[in-house]
């Protein structure tokens, strides 16, 4: 390990790192524009010049280009080095367009900071400035190319790191240009990171354009809850609304970056239609009053029909605190629930995954980057857990092989080998890979499976990524078995599941029964349940039969809905109780790896000033409280509903959680690093064949709604800026099946389903498993009707294809 001296400070660093990184480790900041830890060094900007006073290198050199070596003596403050950097800033500023006051980067701009710190104030060059024409890059990113200093961070990130090609560098000499070949919406669902990366204001956040300066924001380190990965983010709030989210470094989860769903999925917290007042039978009341009235009505129902006539529904988008509170309240009051899963299949899959994963098997997302082979089974990272695709790409860049067993036409930003298998066959393929038992699979695949099996066997750190949306518990169990077998054979194999919601894992930890909304509806129909309390869940959006749902709800004596979003089911409630979003209440979310992470509140809540002031000046009223600042977090509400007193503070709540739930024992000692939570051995499940009819004959098709990166997740779906990103209703079919229909790509498909016809655009691919029809979930489509609870099978005569004109 080389030992060197930087600014009189001696430091020992690992072999092969650059001087600039060594300085970072010693706590010495060397100016940089092009260097970025995750992107590496290119030596494009020359601002990191330092003086090498003694040792193997001498003189002024770029600290990002020279490896730290033994015996180096480096000075960052040497007059010669400072003078050099001052000149660099001067030439970088030569063409700068003099628009800091109207630039959104101003206030957190690296170029601004370094210009200041290099003491460059007056432009001495008297010539004219170079200008560029900007491009429209979509609704998320604003382009202002005049401000570019040619550091190449954006193009290196976009093309090398993320693997998309539609943004890059063009031109020569003084005229190089960073942008797209032609104006247009950026294709990558990871595009927002160039906003964080660009050291100047070339790319700025469009939805929050001109909203404010960073120094005015309330900023907290948060956790993204738009999928199960729990990436680290920084939340910025101002004037009682969330302004924007940025990626925040995490050495365990996401590295520095986040996906666009996470970056822009927060607008639900700002929307005007969000419930901010209690409502009892159509009349607005303070939220506290709504809770008391709900508690009273619940008590009445309980007195007349017994406690078991009351049921509670929660969901995986609630915090662990809320889930724990609901679980506790139901138990002590004798209420049914909380029901935390939408469908039986999802309940089974998620709970199987959580019971299979154990500390020694689980790998973090960051560890995936150093895997040397990745096998995915029924998982589509880019759509189900976007940043996982980035982690996989980094592994692939380092030489890892990637193979996927899936029935979809997967589209990932790196090379991989796909084994096209119908959902029913995936378990067999997995088994074939594990024990080279190839008799169960079709001959066509034997060679491919054998070659993949050989590759996996030859590597040291293979990872199995297994989805839980289109797989059943047998596959999920099989994936864990495969990993265990590899570990026994001496490989450092890792297991990685993706789950449907941010806190699905937390729900599965606390829910021992796994009851689902379907079960509840049946009990409502049979008259067993008379009152329903829905907390942060939208039955309307998740239940597959709306007619049946409406009828069931009408049978209820009481429907209480508590939520922080304006869901559909809210309109049918007798009593509405507003709750707080993660940005106002904070919350613990357990990601798919079992890592429980705390996201603190970003602001105190209340109706945004934009709404109270109707876009203009804030109202000229002096009042001691915040408008709509009286809303309580759902966990408090849970206790009050049962007419009990909640723990007085969040710390006491954590203490209580640790004492009440053995799986949450560690919660009392929660650290900012997060804690890892796993089910105890005794609560682990064993594999179970889950029902569902298999495809019998050639004349039948399995209709499968699958995740889409945009337009699917219930929170991000409400962001106005993401509206155009949702997919159009499309149905993907195997090319071989299409021949039976004499159909071609782009034709119109019309499905005759029990709840009415469905119009979709037909898309064909060789990689779709025959017998499967894939529909990406999108808001324009009532896909819920064929959600997996029923394993929706469509006979051939129900499918009509109309040739495109």
């Amino acid at each position, binding site marked *: 390990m080389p030992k060197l001296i930087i600014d009189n400070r001696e430091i020992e660093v690992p072999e092969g790192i650059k001087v600039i990184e060594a300085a970072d480790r010693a706590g010495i900041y060397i100016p940089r524009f092009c260097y970025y830890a995750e992107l590496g060094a290119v030596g494009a900007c020359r601002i990191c010049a330092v003086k090498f006073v003694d040792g193997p290198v001498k003189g002024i050199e770029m600290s990002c280009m020279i490896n730290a070596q033994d015996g180096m003596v480096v000075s960052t403050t040497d007059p010669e080095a400072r003078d050099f950097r001052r000149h660099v800033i001067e030439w970088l500023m030569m063409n700068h*367009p003099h628009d800091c006051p109207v630039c959104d980067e101003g206030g957190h701009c690296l170029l601004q900071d370094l210009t200041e710190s290099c003491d460059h104030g007056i432009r001495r060059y008297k010539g004219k400035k170079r200008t560029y024409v900007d491009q429209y890059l979509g609704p998320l990113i604003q382009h202002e190319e005049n401000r570019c200093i040619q550091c190449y961070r954006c193009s290196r990130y976009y093309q090398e790191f993320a693997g998309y090609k539609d943004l890059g560098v063009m031109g020569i000499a003084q005229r190089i240009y960073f942008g797209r070949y032609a104006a247009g919406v950026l294709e990558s669902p990871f595009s927002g990171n160039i906003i964080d990366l660009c050291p100047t204001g070339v790319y700025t956040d469009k939805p929050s354009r001109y909203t404010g300066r960073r120094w005015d924001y309330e900023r907290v380190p948060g956790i993204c809850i738009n999928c199960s990965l729990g990436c680290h983010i920084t939340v910025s709030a101002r004037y009682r609304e969330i302004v924007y989210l940025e990626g925040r470094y995490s050495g365990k989860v996401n590295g520095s970056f986040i996906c666009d769903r996470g970056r822009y999925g927060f607008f639900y917290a700002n929307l005007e239609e969000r419930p901010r007042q209690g409502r009892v039978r159509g009349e607005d009341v303070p939220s506290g009053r709504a809770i008391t009235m709900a508690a009273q009505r619940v008590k009445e129902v309980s007195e007349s029909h017994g406690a078991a006539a009351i049921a509670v529904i929660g969901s995986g988008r609630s915090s662990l605190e809320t889930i724990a509170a609901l679980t506790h309240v139901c138990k002590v009051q004798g209420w049914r629930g909380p029901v935390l899963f939408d469908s039986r299949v999802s309940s089974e899959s998620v709970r199987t995954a959580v019971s299979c994963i154990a500390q020694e098997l689980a790998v973090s997302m960051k560890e995936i980057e150093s895997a040397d082979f990745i096998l995915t089974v029924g998982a589509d990272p880019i759509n189900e857990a976007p940043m996982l695709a980035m982690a996989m790409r980094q592994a692939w860049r380092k030489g890892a092989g990637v193979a996927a067993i899936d029935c979809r036409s997967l589209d990932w930003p790196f090379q991989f080998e796909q084994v096209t298998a119908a959902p029913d066959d995936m378990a067999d393929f997995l088994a074939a890979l594990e024990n080279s038992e190839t008799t169960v699979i079709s001959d066509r695949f034997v060679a491919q499976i054998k070659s993949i099996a050989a590759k996996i066997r030859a590597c040291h750190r293979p990872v199995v990524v297994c989805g839980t949306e289109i797989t059943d518990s047998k596959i999920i169990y099989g994936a864990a078995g495969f990993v265990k077998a590899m570990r026994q054979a001496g490989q450092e194999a890792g297991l990685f599941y993706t789950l449907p919601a941010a806190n699905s894992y937390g729900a599965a930890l606390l829910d021992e029964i796994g009851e689902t909304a379907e079960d509840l509806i049946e009990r409502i129909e049979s008259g067993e349940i008379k009152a329903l309390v829905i907390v942060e869940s939208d039955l309307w959006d998740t239940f597959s039969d709306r007619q049946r749902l409406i009828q069931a709800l009408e049978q209820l004596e009481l429907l209480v809905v508590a939520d922080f979003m304006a869901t559909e089911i809210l309109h049918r409630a007798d009593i509405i109780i507003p709750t707080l979003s993660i940005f106002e209440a904070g919350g613990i979310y357990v990601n798919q790896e079992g890592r429980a992470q705390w996201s603190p509140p970003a602001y105190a809540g209340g109706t945004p000033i934009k709404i109270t002031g109707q876009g203009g*000046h804030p109202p000229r009223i002096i009042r001691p409280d915040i408008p709509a600042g009286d809303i309580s977090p759902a966990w408090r509400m849970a206790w009050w509903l049962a007419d009990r007193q909640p723990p007085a503070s969040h710390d006491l709540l954590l203490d209580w959680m640790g004492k009440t739930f053995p799986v949450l024992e560690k919660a009392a000692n929660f650290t900012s690093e997060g804690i890892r939570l796993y089910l105890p051995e005794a609560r682990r499940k064993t594999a179970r064949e889950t029902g569902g009819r298999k495809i019998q004959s050639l004349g039948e098709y399995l209709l499968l709604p699958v995740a889409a990166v945009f337009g699917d997740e219930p929170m991000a779906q409400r962001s106005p800026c993401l509206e155009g990103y949702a997919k159009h209703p499309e149905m993907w079919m195997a090319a071989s099946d299409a021949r039976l229909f004499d159909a071609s790509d782009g034709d119109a498909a019309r499905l005759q389903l029990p709840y009415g016809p469905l119009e979709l655009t037909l898309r064909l691919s060789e990689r779709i498993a025959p017998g499967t029809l894939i529909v990406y979930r999108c808001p324009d489509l009532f896909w819920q009707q064929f959600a997996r609870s029923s394993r929706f099978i469509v006979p051939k005569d129900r499918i009509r294809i109309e040739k495109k004109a």
Partner: protein
Amino acid sequence: MQPIIVIGFLNNMKVLIEIAYALYMGFYTTLKNLFRGPFTEEYPEYKRPLPARSRAQIILTSDPDGQERCVACYLCSAVCPVDCISMQAAEADSGRRYAKWFRINFGRCIFCGLCEEACPTSAIQLTPFFENSKRDILKMVYEKADLQVDHCGKDKNYNFYAYAGIVTKSAGKGEHVKEEKPVDVRTNMP
């Protein structure tokens, strides 16, 4: 005569003269002012012209071409030591950044002038007008319309949007002061 007696006599004389002089000056001043006109300026009947740079009531001035000058950059609100400026920036259809609302709480302003010093567009300026006491505290809170004036104030010439590189209705890329025409990325000519 004894020399000591002479010295004592002279000392007493000096004291007497001093006393007489003081008495004379006192009466003289009184007498003099007895016949002079009053010195007080009758405010508010008479208002003394204050230097243009004296610091009181704040205005938001206009560009030489009459358009709104403030670009809602938040620098004045950031520098204000008593936090009495607040605003919300927005983008106008013309491409200009402007203040959707802008509020100064004069109940708090200490007329330090730091906002004016920080302003990159010469929009916010302090004026000599200081007579703004109000009976109602809320009336001390000035909104944008109360602050805006239709002249340039002390800076008659500066027009930020003539220099800044961003595209507005008044100037496109390459049309601002000291700008080249936009580069053609697709040419190989030097």
